[in-house]
């Protein structure tokens, strides 16, 4: 009797064929993207989205072509912060145009089309039981977004990842076909709890051949405008978990930056403040690290500055 592998084709279901077609469409869509940079953490609430947006702005200010994909489908925040809430998705002849922030950064965020008072919902044939299929469906959604929108020629496509060490690894798996263009940067805050979770993400990513550029320590103190000084937010102990990856920089908390985020006003021209200088420094570190890792590329990022 014949076995599975003795039979050519799939009997007409076309499931494998469709999955292969979608992967091909994703590859076509990302063909013009030089770097795919995933900004993750593992820990929620450490400022991944804020740093993603403002580092994108700092890179954009250097003349790079940047787009952001808000991959946190269940808690999207880039639409509000980038000022593209309610943006139209307008179809072209082949792909769908991406909304753009005022500084020219292309942004895909579910927050553009789903009001903040509404949760992302999927119809289910399985009477709920979403724990059995939800992650698969979200990655299918990610694939459809990558395949359908006009990413075009980009220097960096930044992925704003959802929290969860396991999710970070799932994204690494999803993006695996696009290595060596894929890099990760992790965000932490000075607290031992957050660093412990990020250390787990580092460990999880280290199990595969993933390129982790380093980490950024966010909220490393707060900037007091009254006394024009950065003061500590957390007690930093000597015994805090070590992260075995380079530190790309530290960024203090600035209430003014938070206000900009809430109002959807990007820091297109970073003010001369500690947080502005810190973001600029981290962006330069990122750029240098990406560039050093892509020295064989035909075009140097430096030439685009």
């Amino acid at each position, binding site marked *: *009797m*014949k076995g*599975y592998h003795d*039979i*050519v*084709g*799939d*009997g*007409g*279901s*076309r*499931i494998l064929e*469709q*999955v292969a077609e*979608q992967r091909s469409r994703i590859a076509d869509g990302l063909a013009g993207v030089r770097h795919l940079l995933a900004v993750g953490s593992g820990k929620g609430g450490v400022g991944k989205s804020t740093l993603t947006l403002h580092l994108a702005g700092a890179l954009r200010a250097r003349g790079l072509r940047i787009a952001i994909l808000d991959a946190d489908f269940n808690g999207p925040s880039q639409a509000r912060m980038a000022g593209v809430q309610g*943006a*139209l*998705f*307008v*179809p*072209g*002849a*082949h*792909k*769908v*145009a*991406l*909304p*753009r922030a005022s500084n020219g950064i292309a942004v895909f965020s579910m927050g553009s*089309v789903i009001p903040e008072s509404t949760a*992302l*919902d*999927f*119809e*289910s*044939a*399985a*009477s709920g*039981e979403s724990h*059995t*299929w*939800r992650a*698969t*469906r979200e990655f*299918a*959604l990610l*694939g*459809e*977004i990558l395949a*359908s929108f006009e990413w075009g020629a980009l220097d960096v496509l930044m992925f704003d990842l959802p929290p969860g060490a396991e999710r970070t690894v799932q994204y690494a798996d999803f993006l695996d076909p696009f290595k060596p263009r894929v890099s990760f940067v992790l965000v932490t805050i000075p607290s031992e709890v957050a660093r412990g979770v990020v250390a787990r993400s580092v460990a999880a990513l280290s199990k595969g051949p993933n390129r982790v550029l380093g980490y950024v320590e966010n909220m490393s103190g707060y900037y007091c405008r009254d006394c024009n000084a950065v003061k500590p937010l957390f007690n930093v102990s000597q015994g805090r978990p070590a992260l075995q990856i380079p530190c790309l920089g530290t960024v203090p908390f600035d209430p003014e930056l938070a206000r900009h985020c809430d109002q959807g006003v990007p820091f297109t021209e970073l003010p001369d403040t500690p947080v502005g200088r810190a973001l600029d420094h981290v962006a330069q570190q990122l750029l240098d690290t990406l560039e050093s890792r892509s020295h064989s590329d035909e075009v140097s990022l430096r030439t685009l500055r």
Partner: protein
Amino acid sequence: MKFLCVPCDSPMKLQTVGPPERGSLSIVYSCPECGYEIAMLTNAYETQAVQSLGVRIGPEKSVAEASADAGSAAGGCPFSAMIPGTQDSQRREAPDPVPVRWTAAAEARLANVPEFVRPMARAGIERFARDNGSLEVDEKILDAAREFFGM
């Protein structure tokens, strides 16, 4: 998934996919040698597992069918068209007082928009058309929207 007709030792061919009923798909296979038919009846978990991959079971849709989907999907659940027959018409947005027509070419372009955001894209473009004094969405309106929003 593959099915083998054991007496003939011949792979069976997919014939039809019935629309889901209470989460179950009816997929009929037949043996090209002896003509014997079987039906695979999925349970809701199996249906959902396939649906979550973002694929549809069975023959590729014709252009006409795809276009019809694009035209009828104004207000469905995300991915509702991934398995034939699962489209949900219950969440259609409140109708606008003045309907806007879509040309066939514009509808074809709309089919490029992923299913899950197509209803919002349609509504937004129709609003843009009305704001610009048009009750028809054609390719010129779509191009004008792209230009207006700096895309």
